[in-house]
């Protein structure tokens, strides 16, 4: 594996290797000394064109626990006020000798361009590009599902599980990443969203689509229910939905809806949550909720991704 850009590029074998490696990484995190010497001497750059403290510290923790040197590079700039160009930033990182670049960017495709632009030689790890992909989020979600819902997780896929993803699919890189990865791992994916928040052209996606959460709960036995973050600004001024209240009524997860999940069903959210909008506090804090665990698993999954991208290349040379 040279880069990690999209879950669509991962074979079943790649995905299981990543999850199994994450399992080993997680085990090392139970020890008293959690730091591994694996990536000593390697330089990992966290290149963030978009603010995301949560994702950045997760990658930073992952790289540091593998003993890599970490450089945080915050390059502000939007499509309106362009800062330094992607190309110049990439050339700078190349000159600094980055072995891996973890990139978060507001523009869909930026990670792909960094990997294929011929500007830098290191591995590129996509930490979220626009509304396109966020592969480590999908991997940590799959890892969390596998731990909770598969009896003998190591080496296993998610065959037979049903996962519902609820909310703003249109603008969600989390949804796009999960649809492909979960399908590759054998799970059935049900998208639940108002028609205004579903992209035109999803017919080829390996999933089914329903338009209310109640319908999803009625027609499917849902093993994992993933609530997406909804941005309030999408609901005002001729927006995608009439009001937050109507959204909560049709798509919000409350205790009543949660009780209609099978006994083993888990509740997930990529964070940060809007409590009271897409998820009630009762659901977020319930025993079914694995939301905090998702964050912990994020570090293990990112350690696995960095390890496979960077330590793997030594074996090859």
């Amino acid at each position, binding site marked *: 594996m040279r880069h990690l850009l999209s879950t*669509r590029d991962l074979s079943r074998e790649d995905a299981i290797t990543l999850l199994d490696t994450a399992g080993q990484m997680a085990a090392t995190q139970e020890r008293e000394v959690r730091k591994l010497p694996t990536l000593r001497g390697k330089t990992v750059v966290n290149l963030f064109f978009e603010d995301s403290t949560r994702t950045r510290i997760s990658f930073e923790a992952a790289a540091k626990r593998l003993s890599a040197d970490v450089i945080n590079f915050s390059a502000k700039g939007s*499509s309106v006020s*362009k800062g330094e*160009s*992607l*190309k110049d930033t990439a050339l700078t990182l190349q000159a600094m000798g980055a072995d891996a670049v973890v990139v978060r*960017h*507001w*523009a*869909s*495709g*930026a990670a*792909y*361009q960094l990997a*294929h632009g011929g500007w830098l030689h290191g591995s590129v790890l996509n930490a979220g*590009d*626009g*509304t*396109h*992909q966020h592969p480590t989020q999908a991997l940590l979600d799959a890892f969390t599902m596998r731990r909770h819902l598969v009896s003998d997780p190591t080496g296993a896929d998610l065959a037979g599980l049903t996962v519902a993803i609820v909310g703003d699919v249109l603008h969600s*890189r989390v949804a*796009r990443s999960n649809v492909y990865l979960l399908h590759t791992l054998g799970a059935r994916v049900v998208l639940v969203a108002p028609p205004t928040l579903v*992209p*035109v*052209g*999803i*017919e*080829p*996606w390996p999933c089914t689509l329903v338009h209310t959460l109640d319908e999803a709960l009625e027609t499917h036995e849902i093993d994992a229910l993933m609530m997406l973050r909804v941005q309030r600004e999408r609901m005002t001024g001729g927006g995608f939905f009439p009001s937050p209240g109507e959204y909560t009524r049709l798509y919000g997860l409350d205790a009543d809806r949660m009780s209609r999940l099978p006994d083993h069903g888990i509740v997930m959210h990529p964070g940060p949550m809007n409590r009271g909008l897409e998820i009630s506090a009762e659901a977020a804090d319930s025993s079914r909720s694995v939301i905090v665990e998702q964050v912990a698993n994020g570090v293990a999954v990112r350690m696995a991704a960095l390890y496979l991208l960077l330590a793997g290349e030594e074996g090859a040379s």
Partner: protein
Amino acid sequence: MIDATGLVALPGLVDLHTHLREPGREDAETIETGSRAAARGGWTAVHAMANTTPVADTAGVVEQVWSRGQEIGLVDVYPIGAVTVGLKGEHLSEMGAMAHSKARVRLFSDDGVCVYDPVIMRRALEYVKAFDGAVVQHAQDLRLTEGAQMHEGEVSAELGLAGWPAVAEESIVARDALLAEHVGSRVHVQHLSTAGSVEIIRWAKGRGINVTAEATPHHLLLTHEEARTYDPLFKVNPPLRTQTDVDALRAAVADGTIDIIATDHAPHASEDKDCEWAAASFGMLGLETALGIVQKVLVDTGAATWRDVARLMSEAPARIGSVDDAHGRPLAAGEPANITLVDPRAAWTVRPEDLASRARNTPYGGIELPGRAVITLLRGVPTHLDPRFEGAFA
């Protein structure tokens, strides 16, 4: 005398849709570099779009562009005037002054932006009747395309790029055809990109509405699948569409529903393309590659003959642009010798660095095209000579 055995003689090509970027963005193209690219591509006349800085919305600017074209003398540069002041869509520009200037402007367009307000569009269509002009429309519903990056469909859904739906073009094409009918005027629709637009044009012509339409080489060759590379060289407005749309456009060119091929040659400085897709400018070079692509997708496929190409790339655009006193004329004694000789067997590989344009934003780098113009004559004077003909005019 030239030995033209194996060559095809066409009346000099006439482009109705060229961005020469001067004045204002001389770092991307100048009237001189654009004229050279045009001559090499087989063109003897180009219509320069109004979206320069300053905008070509006054007689002063269009006369300057026209004179500069004459001074360079490689191609006749016919300025297109802006429909509205500053392309803002609010007030009609002084179209009469531009029409009566030295540049004799007959076509008016806010290209790059749609004349969106239906009342402004109606008034423009009415107003240009006074001097036998036409409104040239960039059909794009602005509200339906806010932030749009590429064709809205399966590829945009997967790539997470905001969609530019076909309906945003088709609704404006239909509206403008009906407006042209209502006020008895003439509208030319630029860069048709969807199968639906083709059907609307076909319907409008059947109804007797005075509408003409163009297709670009890139919309006849490329599809939205190209966006999977996230390479902004493929970012263009209107966007590359589906294979179904490409097939419909080719059929419409073949059956005459689409009147002309026009390049929408749109040079951009490298920093406007060497960036994130969403931050990049729309547009691609086209003058030097148009003929080769037309041969590849229309002639070599049997969809059209070279006679059709003469109509599509010279006679019809000259007529629509009201320059048919000088261009798009028969190849006959006594006519102005604006002639393009094509070698349909002179295959070549497009190398961006070899193009005459100042900018390098061609999407065809590395692609082989089957033929090219080998001699271009403007009023009998060679403006482009393939090396093997050098000396022929000595």
